[in-house]
C-alpha cells in the first residue's frame, strides 16, 4: 500500500490540522479510487450504482413506454421484443416500470438515509461535542428508539401517518437516526481528544467553527460507509412494508410494491413480474452493500494497517 494511503488512514482516525484537512479530503477520494482499481467487486458495485443513478436521471428517455399507461388487453404478456420484460397485471410495460422504479428506490433510499444521516449526525455532533446533560438525555432517547425493533417501529409510524412512499421514507429515517448518532458521537469524542481541537478551543474559536472545520471531517468517513449500507437496507424495508400492506401506493412503480404484490400474486402465471423487480432490488442492495464494504476497505484504518 502506498505511503499517502497510510497517512490518510491515520487522518480518518485521528484528524489533521486545518491545512492538511483539504489535502486529506483529496487523498481520501484518491484512496477510494486506488481501492476500486484493486478490487473488482467494489468497482463492479460502483459501476452498478452509477448505472442506477443514470437510469433514474434518464428514466423518461430510457423507458420505452409510459410506466402508468394501462393496456389490460395485453396483460401478463411474457417478455417479447415489444416488451422486453413483459407486461404486468393491467398491461403496463414492466421494463418501463423498473426503469422508473429506480427513481422511487433511489428517492426512498437517498431521502430516508439523507434525513436519517443528517439528523443522526446533528444529534451525534451535539451530544459528542457538548456532552453533559443534553448528551445524556438525547442518548437515552436514542437508546429508547433503538430498543424498539426497526421494522415494528417503521410499521407503526407508517400506520399512523397513512401509508405512502414519503411516510415510508420518514419511518425508515427515524429507524436510522439512533445508530448514526451513536457512531458520530463516538467519532466526535475521539476527535476531541486531539491537540488541535483543544488548541482551537483554547484560542477561543467559535463552537460552530470547531465543529465544522475540525470535527466534521473526521465523521464523514464512518457516516458514508454506514449510509451506503443503509441505502440498500432502505430498499429492503420499503419492500417489506409493501409486503405487509403498508408501503408505496399503486400505481407508483416501486420495485418493492411490484415484487410483493403483483410479483408474488402472479409468480407462477407470470414469473417475469417477480423476477425483474426482484433482480433490480437484489442488484441494488448488493451494490450498495459491496460499495459500503469497499469504502470501509479504503477508509477504515483498522483494516488497512497491514503495512
Amino acid at each position, binding site marked *: 500500500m502506498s505511503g499517502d494511503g497510510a497517512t490518510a488512514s491515520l487522518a480518518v482516525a485521528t484528524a489533521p490540522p486545518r491545512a492538511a484537512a483539504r489535502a486529506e479530503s483529496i487523498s481520501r477520494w484518491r484512496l477510494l479510487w486506488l481501492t476500486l482499481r*484493486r*478490487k*473488482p*467487486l467494489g468497482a463492479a458495485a460502483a459501476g452498478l450504482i452509477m448505472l442506477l443513478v443514470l437510469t433514474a436521471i434518464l428514466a423518461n428517455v430510457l423507458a420505452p413506454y409510459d410506466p402508468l399507461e394501462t393496456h389490460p388487453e395485453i396483460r401478463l404478456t411474457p417478455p417479447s421484443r415489444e416488451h422486453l420484460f413483459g407486461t404486468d397485471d393491467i398491461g403496463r410495460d414492466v421494463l418501463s416500470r423498473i426503469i422508473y422504479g429506480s427513481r422511487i428506490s433511489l428517492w426512498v433510499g437517498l431521502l430516508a438515509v439523507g434525513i436519517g444521516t443528517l439528523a443522526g449526525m446533528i444529534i451525534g455532533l451535539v451530544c459528542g461535542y457538548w456532552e453533559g446533560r443534553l448528551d445524556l438525555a438525547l442518548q*437515552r*432517547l436514542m*437508546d*429508547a*428508539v*433503538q*430498543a*424498539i*425493533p*426497526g*421494522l*415494528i*417501529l417503521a*410499521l*407503526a*409510524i407508517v*400506520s*399512523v401517518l*397513512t401509508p405512502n412512499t414519503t411516510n415510508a421514507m420518514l419511518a425508515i429515517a427515524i429507524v436510522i437516526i439512533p445508530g448514526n448518532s451513536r457512531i458520530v458521537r463516538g467519532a466526535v469524542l475521539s476527535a476531541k481528544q486531539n491537540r488541535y481541537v483543544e488548541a482551537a478551543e483554547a484560542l477561543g474559536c467559535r463552537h460552530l467553527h470547531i465543529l465544522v472545520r475540525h470535527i466534521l471531517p473526521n465523521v464523514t468517513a464512518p457516516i458514508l460507509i454506514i449510509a451506503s449500507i443503509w441505502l*440498500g437496507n432502505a430498499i*429492503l424495508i420499503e*419492500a*417489506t412494508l409493501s*409486503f*405487509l*400492506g403498508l408501503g408505496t401506493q399503486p400505481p407508483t412503480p416501486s420495485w*418493492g410494491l411490484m*415484487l*410483493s404484490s403483483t*410479483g*408474488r400474486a402472479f*409468480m*407462477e402465471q407470470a414469473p417475469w413480474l*417477480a423476477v425483474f423487480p*426482484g433482480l433490480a*432490488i*437484489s*442488484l441494488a*442492495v*448488493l451494490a450498495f*452493500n*459491496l460499495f459500503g*464494504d469497499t469504502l*470501509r476497505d479504503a477508509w477504515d484504518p*483498522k*483494516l488497512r*494497517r*497491514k*503495512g
Partner: protein
Amino acid sequence: MYKYVIRRVMLAVPVLLLSSVIVFGLMRVMPGDALTVLMGESGNIGEKELAKLRKDLRLDLPYHEQYLLWLWQMVSLSPGDSLFTGEPITVSLRKAIPVTLELTALAMILGLALAVPIGVLSATRQDTPSDYAGRMVAVSGLSFPDFWLGTLVITFAAIWFKWIPPIGYVSFWESPTRNLQQFLLPAAVLGFRLSAATMRMTRSTVLEVLREDYVRTAWAKGLGGRIVVYKHALKNALIPVVTVVGGQLGVLLAGAVVIETIFALPGMGRLTVEAILYRDYPVVQTNVMLVAATLVTLNLVVDLTYAWLDPRIRYR
C-alpha cells in the same frame, strides 16, 4: 466497577420508560380501532354497545391514566388481555416466545455454520476468487427481501419435492421430528439472511487478528497456517463476532415477522405485527416492551462485560 454497574442499570430505566412512551403514543394515534374490526363487518354495533365495550376495556380513560395503568400492569407482570381475542397476554406470550426463540436460535446456528467458515476463508485468502465467491454468497443473503426468499422456497419445495414443512405448529417436546421438519427450512432462510453480517464481521476481525504481532510471530515460528488461523486468530476474532450476532436480535425479529407469516408459525413476530394491524394496543405494547427490555438488558450485559475486560471504559 460496582459503581459503574449501578450507574448503567440506573440509565437503563429511563430508556425503557422513554420506549414505553413512544410505543404507547404511537398506538394511540393510529387510525382504526380493534373493536370495529372484531365485529367482523357486521355494522350492527350501536354507539351504546361500543361505549360499553370501551368502558369494559378501560379505553375511555384519559390517555395519561391509561398509560399509568399500563405501566403498573407491566411492572406487576400482569399485562392484561388482548382486545381482539380476549386471551390473557401472558398466555399468548407463553405460546409465542418458544416459537420465536427456537426459530431464531436455529437461524443463528445455521447462519453461523455458513458464515464463520466463509468468513475465515475469505480473510485468509483475501482478494482471491474464493474470497469474492464467499463474500458474494454471504452478501447475497442481505440482498433478498425475506418475504421473497421465503415465498420462493415454499413454492418450489412444493412443486419440485412435493413437500413443504408440515403446517400446524407442534412443540419440540411433543414431537421432535415433526417440530424440526417445521423449523429447519424457515430457520435456514432466516439464517441465510443473518449470515451476511456475521460473515463480514468474521472476515474483518480475522483479517485484523492475522495482522497482530503474536499471530505473525506464530507464523514466523513456522506453525502451519491452518493451526495459526484456528488456534490463535479465530479464537480472538470470535469475540466481536459474537457481539455482532447478539446485536442481530432486532434484525432477526424483523425477519421473524415475515418468515413466521409465510411458514405459518405462531411466533412473536406474527403476533406483534397482526396486533399492530388489528390495533390490539395491549398486545403490541407488551410485546414491544418485552423485546425492548431484552435488547436493553443484552446491551447492558455486553457493555458490562467489556467494562470488566477493559477497565478504561469504566472511567469514560
